[in-house]
C-alpha cells in the first residue's frame, strides 16, 4: 500500500496541483466551521504528519512498556494516537509474524532517516548465541538495521541505557546497552527500572511540541528529568539534615517518615525525577512509601548491592569523601553533614561545570549582541 507523508504529499504523488490542494483546504476550513483567516493553519495541518516511531524489544521484562502505558499527562492514548504513529511495537501492535515483519521493513524504507527508534531492553551481542531471537533472527541484527535509518534513537529504561538486570554479575549472556551496539548515533538515554511514566512520554511530548529532542546532559539523559539527585528534591531531606533516621522498617522513625539513609537509600547518588515529579503525578515514590531508593536510574546499580547497606559501606560506588557521612551513624553529626554537603557541592560542580561555562559564554555573547544594537 502506498504511504503518504501528508495530505499534501498524497496530492503531490498523485500529480494533483498545489492549487487544488489549497482549494481542498479552503473547503475543509468551511467544513470545519472555521473562519477563512484560519486557512493557513488548515494548510499547515494538512501538510503535517505524525512522527513515525518504531519500538523494539530486546532483553527486557516489558516493564518499560507497561510504565509507558501508565502515563497520566500526557495520556497514553493521546500519545500513541495523536502525537506519534507507533507503527511497530511488540506490546501493542495488532499484527504478528510475517506481515508484521514485512511492515517493519516497509516502514523503515518509506521513512528512512525520519523515524524515531525506541528501544527497550539490552542486547546480547553474539548473533550466534541464540539468546534473543526475534522473527527467526538475532535481536542485535534487527536493532542495528533499524538504528541505521533512524533520525533519532531513544533508549527506554536502564536495560537499553546501561545493560540493566541481565548485565549484572556474572552477566550470563554478556548483555550490553544500546550504546555499545549502536555506537555512531546520538541516543537519548531514559534510564529507570522502569522510568517514571511521564518521563517516558515527556520525551515524546517535548518532540511533539517543539519538534526537536529535549536538551541532554553529558550522559545523554534529558536534563529536565535527570538533572537533580533524588536527595536534593526529597521531601524527607530535612530529616537527613537534622540527623533523624528510620533504623528499621517498623520503628517510630519509619512511621514518622524520617530519612531512610540508614536503611540503604540511594537517593544521595541517584539522578531521577522521583523526588519532584514523583509517580502518578505526585502521588508517591519509593521513599514516600517507606522504602529507600535502590538507584534504578544509575549505571550498574544492580551490582551496587546489598541494597540495605547504607551508601558509604557499599563497595565500588567511589563516593570518596562521602564516606565520612558514615560518621553520622556514630554520632559525629556535624562532621558528617559538612562532609556530605562539601561532597555534594563538588559533585554538582563537576557535573555542571561545563554547562555553566557554556551558559556564561552564551549570556556574554547575547549581552554583547544587545549592546551592539544599542
Amino acid at each position, binding site marked *: 500500500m502506498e504511504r503518504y507523508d501528508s495530505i499534501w504529499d498524497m496530492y503531490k504523488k498523485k500529480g494533483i496541483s498545489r492549487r487544488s490542494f489549497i482549494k481542498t483546504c479552503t473547503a475543509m476550513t468551511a467544513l470545519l466551521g472555521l473562519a477563512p483567516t484560519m486557512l493557513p493553519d488548515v494548510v499547515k495541518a494538512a501538510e503535517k504528519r505524525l512522527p513515525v516511531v518504531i519500538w523494539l524489544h530486546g532483553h527486557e521484562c516489558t516493564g518499560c512498556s507497561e510504565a509507558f502505558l501508565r502515563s497520566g499527562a500526557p495520556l497514553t492514548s493521546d500519545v500513541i*494516537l495523536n502525537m506519534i*504513529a507507533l507503527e511497530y511495537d511488540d506490546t*501493542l*501492535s495488532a499484527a504478528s509474524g510475517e506481515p508484521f515483519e514485512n511492515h517493519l521493513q516497509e516502514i523503515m524504507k518509506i521513512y528512512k532517516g525520519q523515524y524515531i527508534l525506541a528501544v527497550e531492553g539490552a542486547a546480547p551481542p553474539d548473533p550466534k548465541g*541464540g539468546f534473543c531471537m526475534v522473527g527467526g533472527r538475532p535481536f542485535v541484527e534487527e536493532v542495528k538495521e533499524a538504528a541505521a535509518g533512524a533520525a533519532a534513537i531513544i533508549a527506554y529504561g536502564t536495560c537499553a541505557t546501561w545493560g540493566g538486570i541481565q548485565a*549484572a554479575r556474572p552477566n550470563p549472556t554478556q548483555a550490553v546497552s544500546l550504546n555499545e551496539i549502536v555506537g555512531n548515533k546520538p541516543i537519548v538515554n531514559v534510564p529507570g527500572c522502569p522510568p517514571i511514566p511521564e518521563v517516558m512520554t515527556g520525551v515524546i511530548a517535548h518532540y511533539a511540541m517543539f519538534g526537536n529532542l529535549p536538551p541532554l546532559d553529558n550522559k545523554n539523559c534529558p536534563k529536565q528529568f535527570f538533572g537533580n539527585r533524588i536527595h536534593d528534591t526529597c521531601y524527607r531531606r530535612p530529616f537527613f539534615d537534622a540527623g533523624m533516621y528510620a533504623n528499621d*522498617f*517498623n520503628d517510630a522513625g519509619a512511621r514518622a517518615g524520617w530519612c531512610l539513609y540508614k536503611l540503604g537509600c540511594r537517593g544521595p547518588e541517584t539522578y531521577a525525577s522521583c523526588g519532584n515529579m514523583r509517580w502518578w503525578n505526585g502521588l508517591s515514590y519509593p521513599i514516600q512509601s517507606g522504602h529507600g531508593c535502590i538507584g534504578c536510574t544509575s549505571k550498574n546499580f544492580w551490582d551496587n548491592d546489598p541494597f540495605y547497606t547504607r551508601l558509604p559501606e557499599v563497595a565500588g560506588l567511589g563516593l570518596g569523601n562521602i564516606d565520612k557521612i558514615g560518621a553520622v551513624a556514630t554520632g559525629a553529626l556535624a562532621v558528617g553533614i559538612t562532609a556530605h554537603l562539601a561532597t555534594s557541592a563538588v559533585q554538582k560542580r563537576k557535573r555542571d561545570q561545563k554547562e555553566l561555562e557554556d551558559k556564561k559564554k552564551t549570556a556574554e555573547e547575547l549581552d554583547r549582541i544587545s549592546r551592539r544594537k544599542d
Partner: protein
Amino acid sequence: MKRVVVDPVTRIEGHLRLEVEVDEASGKVNDALSSGTAWRGIETIVKNRDPRDVWAYVQRICGVCTSVHALAAVRAVEDALSIKIPKNAHYVRNIMAGTITAHDHIVHFYHLHALDWVSPIEALKADPKATAAMQDTVLNTYSIPVKNPEGYDFSAYPKAFPKATTAYYKDIQDKIKQLVDSNQLGIFAANWWDHPAYQILPPEVHLMAVSHYLNMLDKQREIVIPHVIFGGKNPHPHYVVGGMSCAISMNDMNAPVNSQRLAAVETAISLAADVVNSFYVPDALAIAHIHAQKGSAIDGGGLAGIRVLGFGSYPDEPFAGHEDFASAALVRCNGVVEDFAQGLNSAKYTELTGKDLEDSAVITENAKHSWYENNDALHPWDGETDPNYTGDKNGNKEKWEYLDKDNKYSWIKTPKWRGRVCEVGPLARYIIVYTKVKKGIITPTWAEEIMIGQIDHVSKLLNLPPEKWLPSTAGRTVARALDAQLAATMEKYFFDKLVKNIGTGDTNIANTLKWEPSSWTNGEFKGVGLYEAPRGALSHWIVIKDKKVKNYQAVVPTTWNACPHDDQSGNGAYELSMIDTHVAIPDKPLEIVRAVRSFDPCLACAAHVYDSKKKTLSMVNTDPYIGSGKV
C-alpha cells in the same frame, strides 16, 4: 499440508515463536510447536547476594505481571528463615496481589487480546446510535452480580461506566476513520483485518469494544494506585522481607500510610470493581457468547480439559510456612484435576500438599526438547543446565527456517507433575475449585462460593455445561474475566481487614526481629514461596547458605503452559491448544494466535534461567525442580 510460522507473536510479554502444520483442505492442525526464543539468566545473577535483596532482582523477571515475582520471592525467603509477617503486611500484600490480578487481566483483555476478536476496520461500519443502544443491552445481558464482602463502601456511584451515547461513539468512529484515511494506522497496522473471524461480531460490538480499548488504556493506570501508595511505584513496587515498607501512622504527618492514603486506596479499589463489573465482564461474555453461538472459539481447550494444576490462592491470614499455605487459602485450588472435559463424574481430583511439593517423585523435568545438554528425562534433583543452543532444523543459528521439533527447539523446559504435563492459570483455578466443590470435597469459602456462582451464571447464559465451555479458547478468556472480578472483590475484602486491624491499634507493618543477617545462624536454609499469579501457579525456591543465596529457582506459569512437548506425556498446553484449534486460512492463522493469547503469554517469565557452570544448581529436598535450571 502447510507449515505456518508466526514469529514474533506480538501483544504478549517476551519473545515467542509458533509453528503449526495445517491441513489446507480441512483446516485441521496436525502439529504445533511453541518456542521461547530468549533468555536472560536472572536466577544465576541473584546467587551469592543478600537474600533480602532477591525480591528486587527477580521482580525484573517480568514487568507485565509486576510484583508477582517479588511477592513469591519474599515468601520464599521468609519460609526459609521462618519469619511470620504482621497482619497488616499480609493484608497489604493481598491487596496488591488482587490489584495486579485485576489490572493485569484488564490490560490483557483490552490491549493484548481484544484485537484477536475486534477490528477497528469493522467498527467503521457501525451505526453509532445502534451502538449506544447495544451497549445498554450488553450491560443488561452480560453483567454478573457479585456480592461484595460486608465492610466499608464509600463509593456513591460507579465512577467508571460505559459512555453509551451516540455522540461519543461517533467521535471514536471519526477518530478511527481519520487514522485509516491518513494511512497512519500505527498500532493497528498490517493485521489480518480481512479475516472472516472478524465478521462474527456485529459492527456495533466492534465499535463498542474499540471505544473501551481506548477508554481502558487511560483508566487502567488508576486501578494500580494501591501499588503506588504501598510500594511507591508501578511497575515494580517495593517489598521487604518480613513485611512491607509502608509504615502506618495516624500520628505523623509524613507517614507512608495514613487515613487519606487508605482512602485513596479504597477509591482505586472501587474503580477496579467498576471497571471489571461494567466493562470487562460484560464485554468478554458478550464476545464469547456471540462467538460460541456461531461455533467459534469454543475449541482450543487442549490440555485444560485433560489436566490442570494449582497451588491455592489468597491466604486469609499470615501463614507459618509453605506447609500451611494451602490450608490458609481462601481459594483452595491446590491440586490437579484430570479429565474435566469428560464431565464432572469422570473428572479426577488429586490433592497437592506442601509435603507433595517437597517430594521429588511428584515433579520431574525434561530438557530433551530444550536448548540444554543431556537429553534424558532427569529428576530435577539430578538436573543439569548446560546450554546447548543448536539453532534451527538445519543447525542454522542466526537465521531460522523451521525449528527442530524432534530435537531441541526452545529455551523453555518441560515441567511435569507425576510424569505428566499440566495447564495452569485462571481457567485451571476455576476448574479445580468447581470440581472440588461440586464433588463435595470441600465446603466452599465465601470466595469459592463467588466462583461457583460465576460459573453457574455463565453456563446458564451460554446454555452449555461447564465441561463444554470452560476448556476452550473462549472459556480461558472468560475465566480470566471472572478471576478479575474475584480479584477486585479480594482487594475490597483485604482492605476492610486492614482498616479494621489498624483500628485496633495495630500498626505493625514489618517483622524486623530477623532483619539483620547477624541475627541468622550460619548454615543452610531452604524455602519456597507460592502464589497464584494472574497467569497461574507460581513458585520460587531458595537455598540460603551462610547468609547468602546459594541457589534460586523460579517455576512460573508460562513454563508450565508454553513448554515443549514431552515424549511420554505429549504436548504442553500451548501446543495442545493450537492442535485443538481449527484454522480457516492457513496463511492467516488468526485462530492460532488467538488461542495462544488466551493464555496471556509471558515469555520473559518462562525463560529466564541460565547457569553456565555445570551442576552448580545443586538443590534441596524441599525443591522438586532441583538443579533443573528452571525455565
